[in-house]
Structures are given as C-alpha cells and as structure tokens.
C-alpha cells in the first residue's frame, strides 16, 4: 500500500487522484501506525521548510520516517517541498532537513527576466539512469512551482536536471529514497509515467 503522509502541508488529494487514475490504491494519513505499515511512502508538501520540519519533528513522525526510509528501506518519494526536506537543509530555514540525501537547498538568484517562483512547465534532462525516470519519451516536461532549488553533493544522486537561470537537480535519488521538485500529479502523461515507475519499485 502506498501511503501519502499528511503532516498538514498542502493539498494531497490530487496525488491520490492521479494514483487512482493509474489504478493504484493509496491512502492519505497522519496515523503513525498506518505509516509504519506502509509499503511505499510519498512525502508531499507545499509551504515553508522550517514549518514542515517542525511538524515532522514534533509529531513523532520523524522516528517512523527514519525507520521506514533507512532501516526498512521502503521506496520513498518526496514531492516539491517534500524533496527539499530530504536534503541537509535549506536557505529558507534554520532547521536541518531529514538529511537522507547529501544535498542542499538554495534560493534562486535574482536574475533579470527570470521570475521567482519558477512556475510553469519546463523540460527535464536525465543525468543518471534510474528506474523512476524510465520510459520517458522525447522531451519530457513537468509542472514546477518553487522558489528554492536543490543541488546534490554527489552527482550520482542527481537523476534529472532542469535549467532555469541555474542548472539544478529536478529529481534526486539515493537508493530507495527519491525526490522530485516538480508536481507529477499535475503533469498529466509524464507524471503518470513517473508515478507508475515509482509504484513498480
């Protein structure tokens, strides 16, 4: 069973909707017991970094997530802010992230003609082969909305890259733990492919 972790950050219904559309059952929950039994975990999120980490740290979720990701090593997919939480920390906040993937999160620099947030459809380019990015056709594109971007320390953990003023890591992976900066649930055909791949891990 895929569990979409509800820690009070953002609308989660659209992720569940897309999984349903591709024939996959998923539950949205904050229940630690159900999360402990999850076969796969999706960590979504929209909002501020410290706010998200505080909720995770103070709800008892942190221990459960660490156990699932690092000990049981079930597949984990962080989406948007959920991906940034996988890194060591963000310029947006002071709290350390989950630190499961050696990477940092920074704010887009102010560049003339490039608006922040980076919002809209953009292309992704494969940097390292991964099962979750298999089967993409030519010019895969995804829907992004974010003001902070992730940069990995070890290039082997970068699986997709995107350009917007800077070249950043739009998808990262360290073993069973993956993160995507874009919103697969709002990226029709391409998002369905990626979520199908994740479900098959």
């Amino acid at each position, binding site marked *: 069973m895929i569990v979409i972790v509800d820690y009070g950050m953002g609308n989660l219904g659209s992720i569940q909707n897309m999984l349903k559309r591709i024939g996959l059952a998923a539950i949205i929950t904050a229940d630690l017991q159900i999360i402990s039994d999850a076969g796969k975990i999706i960590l979504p999120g929209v909002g501020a970094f410290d706010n998200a980490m505080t909720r995770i740290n103070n709800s008892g979720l942190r221990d459960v997530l660490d156990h699932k990701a690092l000990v049981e090593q079930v597949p984990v997919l962080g989406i948007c802010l959920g991906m940034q939480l996988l890194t060591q920390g963000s310029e947006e906040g002071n709290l350390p992230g989950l630190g499961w993937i050696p990477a940092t999160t920074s704010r887009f620099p102010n560049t003339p003609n490039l608006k922040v947030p980076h919002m809209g459809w953009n292309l992704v380019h494969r940097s390292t082969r991964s099962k979750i990015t298999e089967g993409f056709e030519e010019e895969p594109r995804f*829907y992004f*909305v974010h003001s902070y971007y992730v940069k990995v320390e070890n290039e082997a953990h970068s699986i997709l890259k995107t350009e917007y003023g800077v070249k950043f890591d739009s998808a990262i992976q360290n073993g069973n733990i993956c993160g995507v900066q874009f919103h697969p649930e*709002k990226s029709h055909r391409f998002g369905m492919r990626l979520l199908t791949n994740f479900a098959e891990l």
Partner: protein
Amino acid sequence: MLRIRIIPCLLLRNESLVKTVKFGKFGYIGDPANTCRIFNELEVDELAFLDINANKERCEPNYNVLADIANECFMPVSYGGGISSVAIAERILKLGFEKIVLNTYSLTNPSLITEISTAFGSQSLIVSIDVKTNFWGKQHCRGRSGTENSKRHPVDWAKEVQQRGAGEILLTSIDNEGTWSGFDIELTRQVTDAVSIPVIANGGAGSLQHIGEAVKIGHASAVALGSMVVYQKQGMGVLVNFPDEKKLKAVID
C-alpha cells in the same frame, strides 16, 4: 526556459459549460468534468474555469461542480467567479485548484488582491481584467461579467494589480471575445510592456496565426483559447479539441 502556455479558458454557467460572444449569446458546450477528461487526453498544459454567473447572481462558487473538476484535472487549473474573500479563496485552493482568478471583487475591493496574495503567495493569484471599448474608442476595465464599468484604464489598473500582489494577469478583450477575429494585440502589448508579471492574452483567438501574434507582437506569456477549443470551426458544432503540439510550436517559437 519555460514554455509559452496555451490555456483553454472555459466558462461555467450554473452546472454547464457555455461559450459566449462578446460576453453574451450563450451557446451550450457540455458537462465540465467530462470536458476536463477530454482535455486530459489532449494533454493540455493548463486549464482555466470562469463562472460567469456567480458574480451576477452575487453568490458563492458552486463547490460541488468545482470538486468534480479538480478531481478530473491532471494539470494545473485555475478558477474565477464569486471569490469575494480570503476564506472562499482558501476553500477553492483546498479543492485542488492551483490558482484563484479575481475580477469583480478586485475592482470593488482592491485590498483583497493583497490579502489573497499574502495568504497563499502571488503564484496562486491571477487578476482578470475585462476590457471594453466605448463609443468614443476609450477602453475601460469592467466587472461583474462585463456589466459594470469601473472607469479604470487597463494599463493603469494592470500596474496597480501587480503592485498589490497579483502573480499574473488574464487580459480579456470583451469586444473580441468569441468573434474568432484575433486578439486585441495593441491592448495586449500595452499591458505586457507596462508590467513584469506574466500576462495571459484572451478574447478573439480564431487561428494559430492569432496565437503567434499574441506572443510575438503582443508579448504575451500565455494565450487563452475559448471558441477555438470547443467548436469544430466558426459557426459549426461543439467539438472539444486542441491545436497540434508541432503546429503550435511553429507559430510561437
């Protein structure tokens, strides 16, 4: 770099989709959720829904219809109509809409622009500007589905909504809407050149060439399509469709 967005802009009236000509003369198009399903298949990159009755009737949005729409949209989707408070905006965003569209209440209560932008971020707020040309050739912004003249000038108002926190502008020419005769390119260019936020050109698209003009001459960041994506051809029957990706690229790149 980001793609130029081509956005079907669909009009809700009660529980149905309709299409108008110059904001009047309603033609029935079909069921909203079913139309979303077709646009999913067509792999449209963004959708906009505007309820053209909510403000006239001075009522709140029809949340049941909106929930059905949100459940069917696997692309970003925005909604406008009857949003008079931050609480209503929040309810719409929670249903799964990415963006709120404000028109009437931005004109009658401009501080609402800042309130919504502060609460949810400017990326979640589109201010819609409906422009009508009067007998003497002067252009003004109108509210309540074109029925109320605010006497505001489009370029001045565009600058003001940007300064108040709008993330995008949906710019509609009432005179051209539903006519298939092309966008008001002069108006579009004046507004796009006056603001730095993205402007979506709307009203009048009838051909691929019109889309190219809005982007290249009008400097629009995005283009909204109405009649073109719900009718087979001008004067013909309903057919939900979307221009071919390659043909679009040829006119906007």
